[in-house]
């Protein structure tokens, strides 16, 4: 395996190389590395388990009428809890301090950061991030924030490498999505179209398959006469919205006659809210009065099977794992693997594998700008930091433009370079690497003593940090820029300890600001 491929694998299929990762990958070979990464075993992830156990987040608020002041550190206890255990935190009728209501989201963010740095199953972490954006929910909404631990655990992580049709149903019945895209309140008579529209446009077929000019002329959609319409129209959205009426959660809503739903936050189907009459979705007739949930499930079958979904998801995976504009033949290959394996339990893993093993995977010019999460995790991994997530870090990361589980629009965070290159976003990312290198948020210190057992001249320190962080030979221009900018003489000796620490940390941060580290 050449160095370009090895670097591409570790930067795109993992959150960056730790010391020794490149050599281990060389020894193992990409195919075997993929075999292991695509069949992760949670019982064999001790480093991540230990780091999650050890992680503490601070929570602090003043006393109020119904509560006393709190200023303490807490473990990530919400991660294992079912939605009904956390649901009372979202109850607007209860008087609760705001930080308690948001704490499940904080814990999910912390766990995401810890796993990105420490998990052995890096590829699953990369894909969990991908799917969280694909099936985005906005945890600024309280009822979504408390549902986030179960969404992350039982929906996103469980299905990240699995079968897309099963994944879709897990999402469609998840508390987080039912709240976020409002299907929980959709009723027969005037259905709420929010979820149904984004199911077609974002989750499955994609906007390229939206043939809105044909609005109500379903027979005119190419392929419709053969029962295989090339795309969808607004009528499909309206009809699908009817199919999902009654898919809701136990949120205490009134059922009529003095009856109410329980208040657990769990999924339920309310027959009385379902629009049972006949429907037509993607040129398929639905007979009236089907079994409970059968209409919605059939919509999920249709969109999961659709060739446009294979193309949309194939392309999107290539954009995440390869380049902003992946070669057409790579996208076509990924779509074909997706479609051919749509009944397989490991459909998604097979597509990822095919993309990674393609000759286009590491083609020249396919690099992208790291998103803030990738940037932070890759620096922490390469820098040998015994990282733990802290509330202070989460607060600042939230302001970096990649607020995890906090993108308001259902598209999630953008995946194109252009978005991350605005001046404000750049300034934030420079601050992110500087703060991590200097341990401003008490997330863990760089391994200075390990890297610099002896005092070294400043020029050699810059070179060593470049080799360590990028895995490549030092660039003289980078060395010069950093020494000149810092006003350091090349032969000035630096060593960990009192006065060597500050410049050595700074050098690490500046190497991480250089173009080679900022791109993948």
């Amino acid at each position, binding site marked *: 395996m050449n160095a370009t491929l090895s670097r591409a694998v570790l930067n795109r299929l993992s959150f960056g190389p730790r010391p020794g990762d490149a050599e281990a990958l060389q020894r193992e070979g990409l195919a075997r590395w993929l075999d292991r990464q695509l069949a992760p075993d949670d019982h064999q992830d001790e480093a991540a388990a230990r780091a999650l156990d050890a992680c503490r987040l601070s929570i602090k608020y003043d006393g109020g009428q119904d509560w006393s002041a709190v200023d303490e550190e807490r473990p990530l206890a919400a991660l294992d809890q079912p939605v009904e255990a956390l649901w009372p935190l979202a109850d607007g009728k209860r008087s609760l301090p705001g930080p308690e209501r948001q704490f499940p989201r904080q814990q999910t963010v912390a766990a995401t950061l810890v796993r990105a740095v420490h998990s052995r199953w890096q590829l699953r972490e990369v894909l969990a991030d991908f799917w969280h954006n694909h099936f985005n929910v906005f945890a600024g909404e309280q009822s979504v924030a408390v549902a986030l631990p179960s969404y992350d655990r039982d929906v996103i992580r469980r299905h990240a490498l699995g079968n897309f049709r099963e994944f879709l149903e897990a999402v469609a019945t998840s508390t987080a999505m039912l709240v976020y*895209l*409002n299907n929980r*309140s*959709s*009723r027969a008579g*005037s*259905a*709420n*179209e*929010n979820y149904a*529209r984004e199911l077609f*446009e974002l989750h499955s077929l994609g*906007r390229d398959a*939206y043939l*809105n*000019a044909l*609005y*109500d002329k379903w027979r005119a959609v190419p392929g419709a006469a053969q029962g295989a319409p090339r795309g969808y129209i*607004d009528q499909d*959205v309206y009809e699908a919205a009817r199919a999902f009426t009654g898919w809701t959660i136990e949120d205490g809503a009134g059922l009529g006659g003095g009856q109410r739903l329980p208040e657990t936050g769990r999924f339920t189907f309310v027959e009385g809210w379902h629009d049972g009459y006949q429907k037509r979705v993607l040129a398929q007739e639905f007979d009236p009065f089907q079994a409970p949930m059968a209409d919605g499930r059939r919509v999920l079958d249709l969109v999961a099977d659709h060739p446009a979904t294979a193309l949309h998801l194939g392309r999107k995976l290539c954009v995440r794992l390869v380049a*902003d504009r992946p070669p057409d033949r790579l996208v076509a290959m990924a779509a074909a693997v997706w479609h051919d394996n749509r009944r397989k339990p490991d459909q998604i893993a097979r597509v990822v594998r095919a993309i990674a093993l393609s000759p286009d995977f590491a083609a020249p010019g396919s690099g992208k*700008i790291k998103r803030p999460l990738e940037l932070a995790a890759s620096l922490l991994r390469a820098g040998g930091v015994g990282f733990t997530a802290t509330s202070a870090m989460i607060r600042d990361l939230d302001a970096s*433009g990649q607020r995890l589980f906090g993108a*308001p*629009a259902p*598209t999630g965070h*953008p995946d*194109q*370079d*252009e*978005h991350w*290159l*605005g*001046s*404000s*976003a*750049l*300034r*934030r990312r*420079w*601050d992110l690497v*500087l*703060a991590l290198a200097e341990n401003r948020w008490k997330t863990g210190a760089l391994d200075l003593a390990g890297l610099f057992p002896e005092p070294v001249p400043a020029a050699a320190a810059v070179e060593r940090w470049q080799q360590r962080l990028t895995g490549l030979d030092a660039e003289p*221009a*980078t060395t*010069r*820029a*950093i020494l*000149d*900018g*810092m*006003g350091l003489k090349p032969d000035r000796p630096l060593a960990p300890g009192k006065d060597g620490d500050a410049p050595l940390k*700074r050098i690490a*941060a*500046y190497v991480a*600001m*250089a*173009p080679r580290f*900022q*791109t993948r």
Partner: protein
Amino acid sequence: MDGHALHLSRRRLLRGGLATGLAVGFGGGLCGVPGQPNVAWAAGDPVAGMRTGTLVVVFLRGGADTLSLMAPADDPDYRAARAPELRVQTDGEAAGLPLAQTLAAGIDFRLHPEAAPLAELYRDRSLAIVHAAGLTDGTRSHFVAQDLIERGVGDEAALTRTGAGWAARWLGDGAADGMAGDRMTLSAMAAGTGVPAALAGHGGTLAVGDLDRGLAPPGGKATAAVLDGLFRGDDGPYARAGRDALAGLAGIDARLPRGADGKIAPYAAEGGAAYETGEAARGLQTVARLVKMEIGLRLAWVDVGGWDTHENQPGRFANAVRGLSRALAAFHADTNRFHDRVTLVVLSEFGRRLRSNRSQGTDHGHGGAMLALGGRVAGGRMLGRWPGLASHQLDRGVDLAVTTDYRAVLAGLVGPAVFPGYAGPGLGLLTA
């Protein structure tokens, strides 16, 4: 969103493709020279576009329910289609604020009760309302609709032919941006972290959040010096963007007034303006500060989210309207010395369904409305043509029809040349 799908490197697009793109657009039979009004425009609008000054665009992301903002409150079709809490009332405690208008005689148009600051701006003729405006394309997708509007085109077929955004076409390549001695030129800014697709193709747009703590790079002068060295001679996208950012951020930072202690002085708004928190207020305050620096700002873009009200609309919409109205009023008061030079336009990707759903909300619709605010706006009027809300008058039988192409409003501000292939009539939005 695929709003950033066309992300040809900004500079490259400018140098290579943009001029060609314009030439092709105008090869389609439209007479006219970029930047010059054509005949129809000269007749309709004496001033075809702002030759100087700043255009502020406030984009309401999510599809604002303009039928709840500027409502035909006593229209029987309106009343029949919506639950009472989802429409503006003509009487009672929460009655809407009447608008004097000639758009539709006999209809009692009212502003949402939380829009009192807008009612005042309308009364003093600073604010004009264009109702039933929007895309003629029938898309009900947020992301397609936003893309169409930001690229300044009329239909999806035109998207593939149009790389740059309309604001970028108006501004040109930004080649004059940057420092010339002590003199700084910044022609475009976006409030927030990202640059909208409307500015894709314009090099050097500065994306800035609030200015309260300055814009110097973290880590002091050494960081600026190191970054400057790291980016030198590198033509990759990150290094190019980094160079632009360093120059722009430093230029603005140097112009922020400082106290005796060297710290950025708290911003003193003028005209009794009080900015509150929230996206609109924060963004518009930053715009006002940049306008006052007199650095040649031509276009400022402020995104405001929170308008996609499929559920629980009454409370959410009231909050959104309150935040927007107060922010617009604060901005207008704060920039009173610049009223002849600053024009603001408010738009959204579409309006919402006339008929409410059973979640106390409204789904994606079609026709919306646009607002124009400023000293040069011929305000106190509702413009356009009111199509009516009876079933046969609705778009596809369900949504407010579009009788004014959104480009008619924008072309009245930046000139029709920015919208290749569009040749609709002017609206007379600005005073001569």
